[in-house]
C-alpha cells in the first residue's frame, strides 16, 4: 500500500494525544495516509500548517521527534480474484502466511451507488430458521444486524446463516473479535469446505481498537469488487459494530469534539450509514447483503449505537433466551425485516403474511396472560390456550435450532392454530381459512 513517489518526511511533532498527533507540514491532502514512527496514521484535520493525524495503533511510546512520512493518498486495498480464501488484518495485509495480493489498487470508503441506479431487492435468502424466514424474511441487498446481549451466541448464528445462504462470496469483517471467536469462524468456514468463497478482514481484541475503523471499509471495498465488477452475490458479515462505534467515540473524544448522546460523536448516524448503505442490489445482478452484530447492554436498544443502527438498517434480529423453553429465540416483537414485504406472499405462499401476523398477535396475548399469572390473577380458558400455544410456537418455530422450509413453517403454524384456537379467534381472512385450516 505504500507508493514511494510522493513521500515527504517530517520529524517534529507539536502535540500528542492517546489517538492523534499534530505537526506542521505542507502539501498534505485530506484523508491522506502516513506513518508516524512506523505506525499507520491518517489525516483527519488541517488548520493552517498544522496537520492532525489519527494513529490507528495508538500513540503509546511515540516520541516528539518521531519520523512522519506522508504517502500522498488515502488508504487502499489491492483487489482481484486472489482475495478469495484469504485472511487479512485491518490494513489489508495477509495474516495467513500467504503472499500479498496483486491487483488493482482501490481507495477504500469510496463513493455511494447512485440511488437511481439501484434495483429493488427481490431475492429471498432462506436460512431455515423460522424466526428469520417466517417472521423476518431476509432479502438479498438488505442490511440487517443481530441485536444481542454479549452472552448470546450471535457469532454462531451468524456463521450458520452465512453458510446456509446461497451466495457467491462471504466477507467477514471482524472488529474486536476475541481470538477464540476468530478461530471459531476460521474453523467453521474450513469444516464447511467453504474457504474458497470466504474473505476475512480481522481485528482481534489483542490489536489496537482504532485500527477497527478500517475494517468495514476494507471488507466493503472487497465486496464491491465482487458485486460490481464480477456481478456476484456477496454477503458481508460485520461483527461487532458496537466495538466499531466505541472506536469512533475514542477518536472524536481525542479530537475534542462535543459528544452527543451516550458520549458518541454527533456524526455517529452518518458514520454508520456510510457503512450499511453499501448494501445494494445492482442492476447487473450483483448484490451486497450486510448482516451485522450490534451487542447490547442488557437488552437496551435505546442506547445511541443500537438506536442509530435501527434507523439505518432494514430491520433487526433480536436474539434472546426464552425463559419458558430455555431456548435461544429470535424475538418476534423486537425483530423486524423491512424488506420482507417484497418477498412474502410473492416468493412464498399466499398465506404467509396473515399466518405470520396472527401467530405473533397470539404470542402477544400469551405474554399478557403471563403478566396476569405473575400478578396472581386467575387465567381464562383463552389465556391458558395462549400460553400452551406460546410454548409450542417458541419450541417449534422461534428457536434458532429449527431448520425447515418455509412451507413447513407455515404448515406448523396452521397446525398450532388448529390445535389451540377457533377460526374466529385467529381472525384470518375467510378464504385462507377455507384453504389451509387444520382441524
Amino acid at each position, binding site marked *: 500500500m505504500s507508493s514511494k513517489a510522493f513521500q515527504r518526511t517530517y520529524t517534529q511533532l507539536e502535540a500528542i494525544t492517546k489517538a492523534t498527533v499534530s505537526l506542521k507540514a505542507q502539501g498534505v491532502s485530506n484523508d491522506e495516509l502516513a506513518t508516524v514512527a512506523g505506525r499507520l496514521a491518517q489525516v483527519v484535520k488541517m488548520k493552517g500548517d498544522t496537520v492532525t493525524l489519527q494513529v490507528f495503533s495508538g500513540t503509546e511510546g511515540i516520541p516528539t521527534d518521531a519520523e512522519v512520512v506522508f504517502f500522498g493518498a488515502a488508504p487502499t486495498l489491492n483487489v482481484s480474484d486472489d482475495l478469495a480464501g484469504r485472511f487479512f488484518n485491518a490494513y489489508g495485509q495477509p495474516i495467513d502466511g500467504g503472499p500479498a495480493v496483486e491487483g488493482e489498487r482501490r481507495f477504500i470508503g469510496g463513493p455511494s451507488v*447512485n*440511488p437511481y441506479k439501484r434495483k429493488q431487492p427481490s431475492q429471498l435468502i432462506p436460512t431455515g430458521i423460522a424466526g428469520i424466514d417466517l417472521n423476518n424474511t431476509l432479502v438479498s441487498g438488505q442490511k440487517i444486524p443481530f441485536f444481542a446481549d454479549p452472552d448470546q451466541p450471535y457469532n454462531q448464528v451468524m456463521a450458520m446463516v452465512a453458510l446456509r445462504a446461497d451466495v457467491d462470496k462471504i466477507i467477514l469483517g471482524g472488529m474486536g473479535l476475541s481470538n477464540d471467536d476468530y478461530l471459531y469462524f476460521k474453523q467453521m468456514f474450513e469444516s464447511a469446505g467453504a474457504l474458497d468463497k470466504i474473505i476475512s478482514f480481522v481485528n482481534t481484541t489483542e490489536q489496537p481498537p482504532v485500527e477497527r475503523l478500517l475494517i468495514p471499509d476494507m471488507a466493503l471495498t472487497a465486496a464491491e469488487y465482487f458485486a460490481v465488477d464480477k456481478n456476484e452475490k456477496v454477503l458481508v458479515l460485520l461483527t461487532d459494530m458496537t466495538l466499531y462505534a466505541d472506536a469512533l467515540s475514542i477518536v472524536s473524544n481525542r479530537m475534542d469534539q462535543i459528544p452527543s448522546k451516550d458520549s458518541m460523536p454527533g456524526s455517529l448516524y452518518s458514520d454508520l450509514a456510510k457503512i450499511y448503505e453499501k448494501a445494494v442490489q445492482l442492476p447487473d445482478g450483483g448484490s451486497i447483503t450486510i448482516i451485522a452484530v450490534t451487542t447490547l447492554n442488557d437488552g437496551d436498544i435505546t442506547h445511541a449505537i443500537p438506536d442509530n443502527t435501527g434507523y439505518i438498517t432494514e430491520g433487526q434480529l433480536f436474539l434472546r433466551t426464552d425463559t419458558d423453553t430455555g431456548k435461544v429465540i429470535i424475538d418476534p416483537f423486537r425483530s423486524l425485516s423491512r424488506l420482507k414485504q417484497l418477498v412474502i406472499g410473492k416468493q412464498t405462499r399466499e398465506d404467509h403474511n396473515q399466518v405470520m401476523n396472527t401467530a405473533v398477535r397470539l404470542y402477544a396475548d400469551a405474554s399478557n396472560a403471563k403478566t396476569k399469572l405473575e400478578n396472581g390473577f386467575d387465567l381464562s380458558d383463552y389465556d391458558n390456550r395462549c400460553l400452551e400455544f406460546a410454548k409450542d410456537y417458541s419450541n417449534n418455530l422461534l428457536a434458532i435450532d429449527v431448520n425447515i422450509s418455509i412451507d413447513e413453517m407455515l404448515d406448523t403454524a396452521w397446525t398450532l392454530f388448529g390445535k389451540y384456537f377457533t377460526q374466529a379467534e385467529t381472525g384470518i381472512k375467510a378464504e385462507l381459512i377455507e384453504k389451509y385450516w387444520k382441524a
Partner: protein
Amino acid sequence: MKTTGIVTGIIANLVTVEINGPVSQNEICFINVGEDKLMAEVIKVTGKSAFVQVYESTRALKNGNTVEFEGHMLEVTLGPGLLSSNYDGLQNNLATMEGVFLKRGEYTLPLDLEKQWEFTPLAKVGDRVVAADWLGEVKEGWLPHKIMVPFAFEGEYTIKSIAQAGSYRVSETIAVLTDASGEDRAVTMTQKWPVKVAVGGYKEKPRPYKIMETGVRCIDTLNPIAEGGTGFIPGPFGCGKTVLQHAIAKQGEADVIVMAACGERANEVVEIFTEFPELIDPHTGRSLMERTTIICNTSNMPVAAREASVYTAMTICEYYRAMGMKVLLLADSTSRWAQALREMSNRMEELPGADAFPVDLSAIISNFYARAGVVVLNNGQTGAVTFIGTVSPAGGNLKEPVTESTKKAARCFYALNQNRADKKRYPAVDPIDSYSKYLEYPEIIAYLKEKVAPDWVDKVIEAKNMVLRGKEVSEQINILGDDGVPISYHEIYWKSELIDFIILQQDAFDKIDSVCPMERQEFMLSLVLQLCHVERNFEDFEACSKFYKELINTLRQMNYSEFKSDNFNKYLEQLKKFMSNEQ
C-alpha cells in the same frame, strides 16, 4: 469580478477559505481539487476567513486549493419537467448521471433543455403583471403547468411581447416584459430561486379550511390533516413511519407530491421509483409517478446536502402552489436534517444547546413549517402546500429537542407507539396521544359537517372518548384482575377494542383495506358506534370477550371486502339481522 480564495483548513466537510473580496452568508462557491469542482456553501465569515460546508467528500483536498465564489445562494431551477424527476438534494438529475457510483463533482441539469413543450399564452401584450402572475401554460402530463413572471422580478411590468401558441424549449424566450423605467427583461419557461427564501407572490394566506383525505382511517377519521396544513409523525424505528408515509404519498388527495428522502435509506427511494410508475393515482386514474417528484439525499450521501434537500423540496412545492395546485410535501426525516446541522455546529465549535444540537434549532424548524399553507393567488385562485414530516427521536424518547421543536411548529401530531407496533397493531398511531388541532377550527368543523355528515365531528369525539375510557378500564383490569372489576368494565374495554381493530387498525398491504375513502370511513364508524351503543349484559367476562372477538372478526372480514360488494353486504346482513334480534 468574482471573489476567489484559497483553502487554509479542513475538518471533514468544513473547510476554511481565505478570501480576497466580499462574500455573503450562504453564498455558493466551488473548490478546485484536481479536475473536480466541489460545491460548497458559506456558513460563517470571520475577518478574511470564510467557513464553507462542502456538499461532497473532501478527500484529497489540500491547503492552497483555489476557490471561486458564485455571487448567489443555493438556487433551484423551476420549470416544466420537474414532475416524475429524481433529484439529489442539490437538484442534480440522478437519472442522467453516468455510472453506477455517484461521481464527486458531477453536476447534471435539472431540466431537459431539448424537450419541446406545447405553450399556450394566458396573457396578452399590454397586460400589467407582477411576479408570479401567469403568462401562459404548458401541459406537463395532465397538469396545466403555468409559466409565470419570475418570482424574483420586483415591481410592476407591462407585457411587451408574448410568444404565440406553439412548441418551445424551456430556455427559449416566451415573453418580454418592460418595467416602470422602460427597461426590457426576457422571460423563459424557467426561473431560478434561492431555496432558503420562501416564495411569495400571493395575495393572502388564509387559515386552512378543508381536509386533505389520505385514505388512512386513523388520520382522516380521528385526526384529520387540513389541506395546506402541517403535521408530523415521530416514532422509534420499526414502528411503521415509512409505511405510513408511503401510504399517504400513494393515496393523498393532492395534485403534486414531493417526497424528500432526507438522510434515509436508499432502498426506500428505490421502492418509490420502482412502484409508483405502476400504481394508479386513486383521484385521477393516472400513474402515480406523473404527479411525483423525488428529492433524495440518502444517509450515505454528503451530509451537508441533507439540509439543502428539504429546502429544495419545499421550493418546488411553493412553485406548484403558485400555479394554483394542491401540493403535498413529505419529508423523511427531519431529524436527519437536524443532525446535519448538529454536525456542522459541532465542527464550528459553537456552544451547543440541548443534546449538542445548535441553539437555534427550534427557530429553524418553525420557519420551515411556516412555509406550508393555503394561499390565495393574485388572480383569486387558491393553492396549497401540505407538509408532513417524520421525526426519528433518539431512543424513541419524545422528550428530545427535534420532537419538542417540531411539536411547537406542526398542527397535527401522529405519535407512533412502540407498544402498538410490538403487538402488530398497525398503523401504530397512538389514538390517545395523537391530535389534530384542525378539529378545533370552526371552518374545518363546518366543512366536515357538510362534506361528511352533520353529526360527524360528534361521532369522532365519541369514538375518541370510548378509546380513552377503554384504556382506563384496561389498566384497572390489569391491576384488579378480570374478576376484580364489574362485567360492565369488560364491556367498555371490548368496545374500545372493537374501535381499535376496525377503525384504527388498517392493513397497508391488503389491496382493499389499504385505501379507505371518506364515504366508507363514515359508514364503518357509524356502524361500529351503533354496535357500541347497545348495552349487552353478559353472564361473565369470558362470554363478553368471546362475543366481541366474533364481532371483530366479522367486521374485519368487511374491511377486507370491497365496499358494498356482495361479500361486504353478506357480512352486513348478518350484522343487521343480529342487531334487530338484540332490540
